[in-house]
Structure formats: structure tokens, C-alpha cells
């Protein structure tokens, strides 16, 4: 597609439920990144993929968070047993590669609200 697409754009869930967030990167981009942004704040790195592989998962806040990428394209970020502190905007970005200074293109994010 023309840009990074994320769905849903908004998600309201109850505490304890599982949620799945989807990211469709720019076609041909091998690198994909997930970030989390609390209200009006900077971005917190969660995980990145080079192809289907996630070399560094240390940014995931807890073992309730997991992510996968299949076919070198679409990625899903899953949060199990959601907590209120998980409420944030989850942003996905892609780039042509993980080479230094490759430009990142961000999606518009998924606003997650845990009640």
C-alpha cells in the first residue's frame, strides 16, 4: 500500500480481555517496528522485525505482550489479559531495512483504551 496501515484505529476493551493489533507495512519494507506512546508523550520502543525474525524482544513490557510477523509483511501485536496501564497509542513503523539512517514511516496508530 501507499503507507503503513494499522487496524483498528481505536479499540476499547475491558480489563482482562485479550486484544490483537494489526500493522500492514509499506510493500517491500523488510523492517517493521512497534512503539507505544502514552498520552502526548514520547515513543517507547517495544519490538522490531527484520523479515519474520524479531532479534530483540527486550522492549516488550511484560510476558503478556507478544508479536509476530508472517510472510515478511503483516504483523500483529497481541496483549493478553489487558490492564489499565496498557492504555496508550500503539504505533507501527516500517523501513526498507534496519540499516542505519533508513527512514522510518509510521502508521497512524491504534488508540487502545482499557476500562
Amino acid at each position: 500500500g501507499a503507507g503503513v496501515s494499522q487496524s483498528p484505529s481505536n479499540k476499547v476493551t475491558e480489563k482482562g480481555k485479550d486484544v490483537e493489533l494489526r500493522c500492514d507495512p509499506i510493500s517491500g519494507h523488510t523492517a517493521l517496528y512497534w512503539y507505544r506512546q502514552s498520552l502526548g508523550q514520547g515513543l517507547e520502543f517495544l519490538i522490531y522485525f527484520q523479515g519474520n525474525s524479531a532479534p530483540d524482544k527486550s522492549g516488550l513490557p511484560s510476558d503478556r505482550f507478544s508479536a509476530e510477523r508472517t510472510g515478511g509483511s503483516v504483523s500483529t501485536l497481541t496483549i493478553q489479559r489487558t490492564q489499565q496501564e496498557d492504555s496508550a497509542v500503539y504505533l507501527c513503523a516500517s523501513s526498507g531495512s534496519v540499516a542505519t539512517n533508513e527512514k522510518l514511516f509510521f502508521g497512524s496508530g491504534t488508540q487502545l483504551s482499557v476500562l
Partner: protein
Amino acid sequence: TQLLEQSPQFLSIQEGENLTVYCNSSSVFSSLQWYRQEPGEGPVLLVTVVTGGEVKKLKRLTFQFGDARKDSSLHITAAQPGDTGLYLCAGQRAGNMLTFGGGTRLMVKP
């Protein structure tokens, strides 16, 4: 722990005024990027500075990378309401991993 500190956090000015936003760290970065983010959208890259002491200009925006590659500044001349938004700096180290600052929220009033 915030590796990149941005200041000020909030800035409200009148159209036509000048402003400077600062991004400071105790860490050295291979490059530093500045992004602008509008409500409901993802950040959009404005510029990447790579060399210590480098200065880049983008119309009314001037970006500078510190000599030691630990800090950067963004200066806006004659701010306009269209400049309103959240400005984020991000430092790059290994590979393409970015560490973001906390952001500066700028409001320019007509």
C-alpha cells in the same frame, strides 16, 4: 529512564515569534532525527543530522547537532499556526533502533 531529555515540554507562543527546542543526552548517538506529530497521526520525519556540529535548514526550521553528538536543537523562525504540533527528537545507535525524547508540544496562536 529517559535517555533523551527534551525541553521545554510545552510552549505556547504568538504567530511571528521565534523559538528553540532542545534535546539533550549523556549518551552519544550516531545520528539524531527530528519528527513532527499531529493529533491522530504518526510522527513524520523532518530531518536527520549525522555529523557533530552539523546544521541543517528546512525553510524556517534550523536543526543543529552538537559537536559531541549528544545534543541537538531545533529553532523555528517566525512561527506560524501551521507549526503547531508535537516535536520529537530521536537518537539512533545500533542499527536503525531509535530512542525517543519525551516531546515538546508547541502551540502557535494566530
